[in-house]
């Protein structure tokens, strides 16, 4: 069966050109980049080249790029590294309610160790308010971390304006740009950011390799101590093949940014139009304009997300849901709750994210099938306009957690 993959925000297939450089590195470039002999020097050179490619994708200096094993590691490093380094200065961190778990759980961990964290709310479209941010800043604030674009609902935050406010106060500013890279132009020189996280597997590179941009001269503690790799900032023998692959993926992303954005936007709009016109009682989550070019996120009333996913999977379509079931937890998506959806509604979400190989025919096929799937599931549901959710049941359930 032909599969239609619409979960590019979760991960992307590796571009054949990326596979190629990775395989050749894997086969012919095994030297330890820290070694003095020929094999080591060759490996080191290929890493330097990849660092330049990644740097170029965000307009950084190559010496500001530090490879990590994932976006999550980059996020953890940024938060913990700045928190630990600046403990003497203050113990307050500002972030948002809609961050990725790599940020949220890290902040929660720090809360157990004497730090205080403000989680900024967002409006119904997922945007933070600059006023809220200004009000949250205290003299103990040592770090602000606000994501560039949200992975679930696709909303793009005003990073440049946030950066300006934060910079004026002399506070360190981190942004999780894992979803932004390859989807929005990023220029660290223009954005007033000190730290920025990226991950290769969201831009047709391999899983298990990411990077943290650290503005030149910014003091930060290490997260992984040990050997002198990454200019003594991140220990562990360098993952040469994946670094080289990330470099290639970043190069391709930079080169084709415009084209990819236009392609995704067109198909995203086709998808949103099709779904909202042909299916009743549907809500588009996230900001209508300020959203990732490939992101469409819907809530279908009266039904639950995993049953939609499963129905799609059975006919060859891969999508995702902020629902309970995707994560094995019973909690509905913290992002959908943060934009004000009731928990019952938040369980019925479907995220479809478009990639460079998605076609207009794919979108037509998905919309056509989705119409029937939603109908069938709704017919099966005990809830509908006439039998609305009993709010008593509701409250009970919330306590339940």
């Amino acid at each position, binding site marked *: 069966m032909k599969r239609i993959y619409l979960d590019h925000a979760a991960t992307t297939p590796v571009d054949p050109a990326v596979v190629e450089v990775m395989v050749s590195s894997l086969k012919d470039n095994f030297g330890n980049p820290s070694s003095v002999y020929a094999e080591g020097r060759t490996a080191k050179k290929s890493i330097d080249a990849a660092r330049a490619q990644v740097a170029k994708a965000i307009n950084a200096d190559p010496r500001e790029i530090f490879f990590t094993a994932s976006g999550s590691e980059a996020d953890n490093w940024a938060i913990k590294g700045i928190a630990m380094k600046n403990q003497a200065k203050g113990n307050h961190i500002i972030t948002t309610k809609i961050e990725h778990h790599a940020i949220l759980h890290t902040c929660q961990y720090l809360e157990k160790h004497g730090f205080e964290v403000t989680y900024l709310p967002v409006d119904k479209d997922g945007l933070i308010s600059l006023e809220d941010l200004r009000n949250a800043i205290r003299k103990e604030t040592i770090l602000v971390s606000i994501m560039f674009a949200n992975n679930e609902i696709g909303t793009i935050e005003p990073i440049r304006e946030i950066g300006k406010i934060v910079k004026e106060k002399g506070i360190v500013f981190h942004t999780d740009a894992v979803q932004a890279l390859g989807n929005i132009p990023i220029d660290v020189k223009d954005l007033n950011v000190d730290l920025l996280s990226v991950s290769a597997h969201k831009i047709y590179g391999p899983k298990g390799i990411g990077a943290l941009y650290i503005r030149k001269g910014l003091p930060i503690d290490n997260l992984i101590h040990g050997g002198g790799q990454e200019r003594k900032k991140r220990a562990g023998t360098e993952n040469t093949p994946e670094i080289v692959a990330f470099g290639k993926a970043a190069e391709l992303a930079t080169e084709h940014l415009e084209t990819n954005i236009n392609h995704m936007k067109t198909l995203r709009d086709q998808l949103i139009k099709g779904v909202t016109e042909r299916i009743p009682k549907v809500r588009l989550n996230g900001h209508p304009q300020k959203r990732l070019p490939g992101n469409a996120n819907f809530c279908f009333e009266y039904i639950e997300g995993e049953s939609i996913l499963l129905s799609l999977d059975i006919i060859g379509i891969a999508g995702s849901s902020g629902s309970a*079931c995707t994560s094995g937890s019973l909690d509905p998506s913290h992002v959908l709750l943060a934009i004000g959806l009731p928990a019952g509604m938040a369980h019925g979400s479907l995220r479809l994210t478009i990639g460079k190989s998605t076609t207009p025919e794919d979108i037509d096929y998905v919309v056509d099938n989705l119409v029937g799937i939603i109908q069938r599931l709704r017919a099966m*549901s005990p*809830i509908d306009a006439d039998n609305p959710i009993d709010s008593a049941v509701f409250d009970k359930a919330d306590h339940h957690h």
Partner: protein
Amino acid sequence: MEYTEKVIENFSCPKHVGELEDANGVGQVGSPACGDIMKIFLKINDEDIIENASFKTFGCGAAVASSSMATDMIIGKSIEEAGKLKNSDVVDALGGLPDVKIHCSVLAAEAIQAAIQDYKTKKA
């Protein structure tokens, strides 16, 4: 989520979906906040035998499949027997459920108990 063939089958072509017009025992458990609501309809005859059963479910694949399987398992049984249906019986009949989905089978057993209770209350 790794589902068995049986689960997929019961999800794709569930038996006994919908409301029973002549139901005399109805039970609902779960909540949308938890991501599952199960409503079970029973038509119970004078000998306390379940003549027919149906369900409406808001929930994941496992919830739908559990509802389908559970209703199918109790038709023809006495309410005493049906009330003893254990969630593990449903899991076994489905060829297993992923760990995080076991609670769906629990809901199915509970919904049946609730529907039987409803019937008893009304009758009393």
